[in-house]
């Protein structure tokens, strides 16, 4: 059974059919790519899967359990985590606080712990912090743990987002253009991190990516989206040679 299954998902914004009959099946340990020109509906698909919008039609299920219709925090707690195309960080919080926050739904000390600072709370906060620092280590930004995110370089902010998304301990990870705005050096780093996250945690990863080099290298299968519809699906090799893809997408940006 696939970890994440999306069936016949469609959504409209006013008169605009942003997503039309989208299908997806990912198994644990697979990396899938989602490409397409700007405005094709890629981010909207992420928003629908993660519950930001409830899909107008279709069904999203995680390990066979229907999740569409649930509020986003519930879906996140059930195991679908994501990053955002345009970095959504919390401007007044430090790096380690970002990662700790992702444990919210699993906190056991409750309100008594929050108000009275019980021993249980201190123990649990220390555990969360330890895990968070471990993830920051894996991302190579442990030395930035105490910094407020606002002052960090772009690449580091991207990695904070990634660490935070992993800290929810997801089974499915949705990455929305994780290399946007990065220089080649940072690009290599982030690809390495995605691979490590995949190898060490065995996640199912769905990757939206603009740079074809990245998707072609990381993904086993790729979907191409245009005007909200999947126009081609296959291995990187098949996608590269599909005339429809070249027409809709690759043609415009010339094979980078």
């Amino acid at each position, binding site marked *: 059974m696939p970890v994440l299954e999306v069936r016949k998902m469609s959504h409209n914004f006013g008169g605009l059919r942003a997503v039309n009959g989208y299908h997806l099946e990912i198994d644990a340990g697979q990396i899938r790519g989602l490409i397409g020109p700007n405005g094709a509906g890629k981010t909207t698909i992420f928003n629908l899967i993660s519950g930001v919008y409830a899909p107008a039609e279709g069904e999203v299920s995680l390990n066979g359990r229907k999740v569409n219709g649930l509020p*986003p925090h519930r879906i996140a707690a059930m195991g679908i985590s994501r990053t*955002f195309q345009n970095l*959504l960080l919390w401007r*007044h919080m430090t790096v380690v606080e970002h990662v700790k926050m992702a444990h919210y*739904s699993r*906190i056991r000390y409750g*309100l008594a712990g929050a108000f009275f600072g019980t021993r249980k*709370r201190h123990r649990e*906060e220390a555990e*969360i912090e330890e895990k968070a620092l471990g993830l920051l280590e894996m991302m190579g930004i442990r030395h930035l743990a105490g910094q407020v995110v606002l002052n960090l370089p772009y690449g580091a902010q991207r990695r904070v987002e990634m660490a935070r998304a992993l800290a929810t301990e997801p089974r499915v990870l949705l990455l929305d253009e994780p290399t946007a705005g990065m220089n080649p050096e940072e690009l290599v780093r982030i690809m390495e991190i995605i691979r490590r996250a995949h190898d060490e945690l065995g996640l199912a990863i769905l990757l939206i990516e603009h740079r074809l080099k990245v998707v072609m290298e990381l993904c086993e299968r790729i979907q191409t989206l245009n005007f909200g519809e999947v126009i081609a699906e296959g291995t990187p090799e098949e996608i590269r040679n599909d005339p429809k893809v070249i027409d809709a997408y690759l043609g415009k940006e010339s094979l980078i």
Partner: protein
Amino acid sequence: MAPPTTFRTFRAGWSRVPLIGWLFGALLAVTLERLVGGPLAAAVGLPKIPALFGLDIMLKKPLLIPNAFLYVLLVYGLPMGFATRASIAPANRLAAGLLRLPITVTTFVYIVFLYVIFHVWAEVNDYRALVLKLTLIAIMFTLSLNVINGYMGEFSCSHPGFMALGAYCASVFSLGLFVDTRFFGTALLPPALGPFVFPVALLLGGLLAAAGALIVAVPSFRTRGDYLAIISLAFLFIVKSLIENLEYVRGPRGLSGQPDWANLPTVFLWTVACIWSINNFVTSTIGKALNAVRDNEMAANAMTVDTRRTKMVAFLFAAFWAGIAGGLFAHVLRYVNPGTFGIQSLAEVLAMVYFGGLNSVYGSIVGAVSISLLGEALRPLEIFKWIIIPLLLILVMIYRPTGLIAFKDVDVTALFRPRTGPDEEV
């Protein structure tokens, strides 16, 4: 433009004084005042000991301002200056020693020390004790509002309403059970029991305020959007007119004769409890979720944070402490009427929150203390007080839009640590 070397070394000296050194200095000053304050005041030509560092004299008798300054210098300035400078080495050793104890014990020692200073200072006259108690209550009131308007980043106007609920609930409890009154009949319980039951009265007041908060929170936090400001304002008016029209609590005439239970140690203890629990809350991951929701709700939800639960909990918690503050307030003044909890009270507490600094425990303490003292100092100017305080607020908003000490977490270890000098890493 560097200051002269002598001045720099003079200033550098102070940066080596740890907190405990300042406390010693303050203790010396207040003890001195307690012992020789009267004669000293007479010697510098003041009719009596200035109650609030001379602030209270300045507007009433401007001619005495130099005398008041001299008094403050002699009683507070010089002894504190001398004691702190002379004790740098032992004070730093003591600070280091105290930090080796468990942090709860260390904090306890500092709090007791602080209380002793307050106690000696307030013993000089009743007015001081009253101002101190009201200032402590203002701290609770301000800090709890900061949870909503600062940490949560919403705009709530109902805080005086929560305070009113706490004040009336605690008053009805204590008057009804422990005092012979015309309106509630004879006392049902022996007054000797009173002080032990006082916490129950306050807690009931806090719980009633939290229940009131639920009425505001349910519709406000149901959907996204800024409904809170308007719903909470409506709530404030409803509470006020409800009390005004409730003959059971004597309407606009108010309730008087509350037992004298809110003495300085009681108010101080509750204030410490309030600061402690609110600080616990806002530094926990559950509390930090407020900041996450405020700074970016979509990201917070994607990280499993439940917006509605987070906001509800914080709102009710804040209202609870406003209710406790209200109960104490009623028993400090031993009189409440609905007029106290109107727009003016709202303006005052908003000024304290925004002046002191959003999202900061230190900020709320500074805001509450400075606006309370300023309010007392400006009392002779009556209505002008309400021109000067807003003007000051506007200035702060222009130069520091989030307030004096915004977005700063309390770090007790840093607060208590020994100081090595101006160049140290912070």
